[in-house]
C-alpha cells in the first residue's frame, strides 16, 4: 500500500500532463505572439531572414499607417456598429422565442430545436444568391441594415437554443403567481424572466457578437464599398488591393482583435457554458 501511494505521488511530481500542457500552450500562443510582435517590427525586420524573434527596434508606424493612411478606423467602427445592433436584435427576439420554446405548450418542439441547431451552422454560401438579389432589388447593398438584418436571421437560432436551455432552469412558481395576478406572456417575459435571464443573455450575446464581428462571406458580398466594409473584409482586401506591408495588416488586426478578445476573456465562463450547452444537454 505504501509503495503504491509513493509511486502515485511520484507520478504527480513527474508530470507528463504538465509537459503536455506546456506544449499545447506554446503551440497556441506562438502564432499569437508572432502576430503581436510583427505589428511592432519595422519593415526591414519583417522581411529579414532568419526572422527576428522580437522587435529590436519597436515602432508604432504600422498603427499610424493603418489608422491614418488607410481606413481602418472606419472598418472598426462599422464592425462594432453592425455587431452591436445585431446582438441587440438577436437578444430581443431570442428572449421571446426562447421563452416560447421553454414554456408555452407547443407542437413539434423537438424538430424545431434540432432544426435551429442545424440552421445555425449551415453554409452561408447556400443562401447568398437569393439574399444578394433581394438586397440589390431593394437597394440594401452597401448599407448597415443590409448586413444587420441577415445577421439577425442567421444568428438568432443558436441564441434561441442557448436561451431556452437557460430559461428551463428558472423556477416556475414566480411565473405562475404573475399569471394569477393577470400578467400575459409578454409582461411575464419582461418583468419576471428578463431580470433572471442574465447569464443566458450574456452567453448568447457574446456568441452573437463574436459571430457577427468575424463574419466574412456576407460582408464581402453585400458591403464591398470602402465606406461600409467591416474589419474582416478590410483585412482580406487590404493585401489584394494595395501592396500593403504585413506590418500594417497586423497592426490593424491587433486593434480589431482587442475588443473581441477582451469580451471573450471577461465572459469566458459564459462562452464555455455556451459552447458546451449543445453538447452536454443535447
Amino acid at each position: 500500500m505504501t509503495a503504491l501511494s509513493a509511486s502515485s505521488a511520484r507520478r504527480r511530481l513527474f508530470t507528463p500532463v504538465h509537459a503536455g500542457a506546456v506544449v499545447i500552450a506554446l503551440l497556441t500562443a506562438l502564432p499569437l505572439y508572432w502576430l503581436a510582435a510583427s505589428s511592432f517590427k519595422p519593415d526591414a525586420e519583417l522581411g529579414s531572414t532568419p526572422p527576428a524573434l522580437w522587435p529590436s527596434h519597436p515602432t508604432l508606424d504600422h498603427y499610424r499607417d493603418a489608422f491614418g493612411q488607410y481606413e481602418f478606423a472606419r472598418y472598426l467602427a462599422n464592425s462594432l456598429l453592425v455587431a452591436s445592433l445585431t446582438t441587440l436584435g438577436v437578444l430581443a427576439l431570442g428572449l421571446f422565442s426562447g421563452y416560447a420554446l421553454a414554456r408555452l405548450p407547443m407542437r413539434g418542439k423537438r424538430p424545431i430545436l434540432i432544426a435551429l441547431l442545424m440552421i445555425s451552422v449551415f453554409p452561408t454560401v447556400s443562401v447568398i444568391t437569393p439574399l444578394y438579389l433581394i438586397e440589390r432589388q431593394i437597394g440594401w447593398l452597401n448599407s448597415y441594415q443590409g448586413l444587420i438584418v441577415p445577421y439577425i436571421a442567421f444568428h438568432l437560432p443558436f441564441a434561441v437554443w442557448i436561451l431556452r436551455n437557460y430559461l428551463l432552469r428558472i423556477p416556475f412558481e414566480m411565473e405562475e403567481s404573475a399569471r394569477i395576478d393577470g400578467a400575459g406572456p409578454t409582461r411575464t417575459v419582461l418583468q419576471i424572466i428578463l431580470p433572471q435571464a442574465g447569464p443566458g443573455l450574456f452567453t448568447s450575446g457574446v456568441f452573437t457578437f463574436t459571430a457577427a464581428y468575424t463574419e466574412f462571406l456576407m460582408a464581402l458580398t453585400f458591403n464591398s464599398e470602402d465606406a461600409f466594409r467591416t474589419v474582416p473584409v478590410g483585412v482580406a482586401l487590404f493585401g489584394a488591393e494595395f501592396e500593403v506591408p504585413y506590418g500594417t495588416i497586423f497592426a490593424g488586426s491587433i486593434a480589431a482583435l482587442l475588443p473581441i478578445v477582451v469580451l471573450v476573456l471577461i465572459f469566458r465562463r459564459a462562452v464555455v457554458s455556451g459552447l458546451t450547452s449543445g453538447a452536454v444537454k443535447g
Partner: protein
Amino acid sequence: MSFSEIRLSSSGFELGDVGTRNYEALLASTAWRDALTFTVSYTVLSVLIELVLGVLVALVLERLTKARGWMMALLLIPWSMITVVSAQLWSYLYNSAYGALSWLVGLVTDEPPIILGTPVSAFSAILVADVWKTTPFVAIIVLAGLVTIDRSVYEAAEMDGAGAWTTFWRITLPLLRSTLAIAVLFRVLQAFGVFDLPFVLTGGGPGTSTQPLAMLGWKVMFQNLNMGAGAAVAASTALIVFVVCLLCLKAFRSQVAEEDAK
C-alpha cells in the same frame, strides 16, 4: 433559382427558365468535381485531426488543476479570432521569402520551400491553420463531456486492474460518444462551408487545387456574374450538407436508443 438563368438589369433581375441545364453543366464540369474533392478531403482530414488532438488536449486539461482556467482562456483566443486575420498571419508565416515557418523548414531541407506553391503543401498549410484555430473548440466540448463522467467508473476499472490505455479505449471513449458525435456534426458542417481561410491564404490555388465548393460558387456568382450556375453550386453544397446532417442525426439517435435499451 438554381433552375433559372438570372439576368441582372439596372433595376433588378429576371428569371429565365432553363430547366435542369445548370445542374447538367454542374455535373459535367471538372471545376465542380475538383472543388467537391477538395472540400470532402479537407472536411474529413481536418475533422479527424482536430478530433484526435482535441481529445488529447481535453485529457491534458482535465488533469490540470491550477492552470486550467488560464489554459482555457488561452485556447479561447484562437477560437474567437477573426478567420481572415489568422489567414493573413499564416500567409506571412508561410511566405517563401521571409516567412518564419518556411525558414524553419528550410533549415532541414537546405532551401526554404514554396509552401503555398504546390497543391499538396498548400493543402497541408490550410489544414495546419485550421487545426490551430479550431482544435480548441473541439477540446472544450470534449472536456465538458469528460468532466461529466463519474469518478467511480474509473475507480472500478482500476480495481479490476485496467491500465490507462485500456481504461481510455474501453471506458472513456465509449462514454464520450454522444459528446464526440455533436462535436463532429458541428465541425463537419463548418468545414464543408469553408470559405474565408482558402480565400485569403491561397485564393484557391495553386490553380484551383485548394478551391472549396463555397469559393467556386461565390466566384461563379459574383466574379463571372453567372447567378444561376452559382446557385446550382451552392444548392449542391447545401444538399450534401443536409444529407450528411441527417446521417449524423440518425447515427446519433440510434446510438442513444441503443444506450437507453441497455
